[in-house]
């Protein structure tokens, strides 16, 4: 559905006008690693998900920090407090794997297609501009992921 040609003109323009505001990066780091069956994988989502009872996301500082999603979280634990109203939530409401495929990732690990699943996953709310404001928290997260021996991160939008 998110082929720009398929969208109404006003929505297409809204998405395209953001392109010039996106940062350009000088470096192009390319990190190699072991084959997939030996990778330890974490999910980092920008869907504004968190465990019920955690601080909701919001504007300002409340929207910049990440939330921790334990690897043993189950579907009933997660709620969404993303500030945007311009994406579908009915899919997540019906099945969390539409936005946060932890069940699928665990199945791949069980089948030996990926090595293992991280002990912790993380969630941001991807509505802050410019996106470079996330950099300090992203660097912090990279250190935490390394502590968890993660060597592959799946970044998932919403």
């Amino acid at each position, binding site marked *: *559905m*998110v*082929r*720009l040609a398929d969208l*109404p003109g*006003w929505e297409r323009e809204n*998405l395209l006008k*953001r*392109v010039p505001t*996106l940062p*350009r*990066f000088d470096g*192009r*780091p*390319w990190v*190699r*690693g072991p*084959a*997939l069956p030996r*990778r330890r*994988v974490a999910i980092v989502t920008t869907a504004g998900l968190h465990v*019920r*009872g955690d601080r*909701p996301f*919001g*504007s300002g500082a409340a929207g910049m920090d990440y939330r921790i999603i334990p690897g043993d979280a189950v*579907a*009933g634990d997660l*709620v*969404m*407090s993303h*500030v945007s*109203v*311009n994406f*579908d*939530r*009915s*899919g*997540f*409401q*019906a*099945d969390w*794997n*539409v*936005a946060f*495929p932890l069940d*699928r*990732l665990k*199945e*791949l690990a069980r089948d030996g*297609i990926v090595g293992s699943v991280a002990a912790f996953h993380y969630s941001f709310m991807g509505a802050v501009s410019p996106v470079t404001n996330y950099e300090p928290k992203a660097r912090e997260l990279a250190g935490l*992921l*390394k502590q968890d021996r993660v*060597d*592959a*991160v*799946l*970044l998932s*939008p*919403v």
Partner: protein
Amino acid sequence: MATTQVSLVREHTEALAPPRALWVPFMLGRPFGVPHDAAFQRDVLLAALRLLERDGGPVIEDYPHDAPHDDLGAEPEGLACPVSFPGRPSQGTLAEQLVAEVAQLAVWHDLAARHRGRTTLGVTGLEIDALAGYLASWLTEPPPAPFRTGLSNGAALKLACDELKAYYYEAKSVQPGRHGSAAIQGWFWHDTAAGQAFVALREKAACSADPSLKPLAVQSLVPRAVEMNLKTVPPAST
């Protein structure tokens, strides 16, 4: 740290040029395609993870399949709601209609929670009747105190509105008939007291001197797609 990602807006990903990205032709909000189709979700996930095995990049690969048809809202087999669903309440003020409508939907939301084994409610910590009462009081009285310490009026209202909408969406999804996301959105904004109340709250936020309410007036209460339709509809009265 090696990363791979799913991309929903290809043009944004092209501009950012991350190391590895799988562009998918799915609607915003559904990066893994469709609910309750584990095989499809697994295929998308694996396609993204396989990019980790590429020798060089950056690479943006296009996922070749559209999302399967979504049966969201098909009546759960073996589960029957004990009452027929009445239409929108027509008596009383908009605030009273909102409270009555929320009560009417309770049996459907109960059914949805049983069917799915979960609910996505719980961000505000309010029970649904308290949530409805909180929002109803916004329509008729000065702003009520936020339901949690440390929240601004705007932040509390935003969380409450999003949670009430989730309640409606979850309840509607199990009513007889097929209710895809567009149909549920259309129903919510055009056929419910809640949708009308949200539009009224947006107007209230626009007129308020409270800066915490400004985001609700311009972007974070009424979706752009709905806003475009509402431009031809006069503001609702409360």
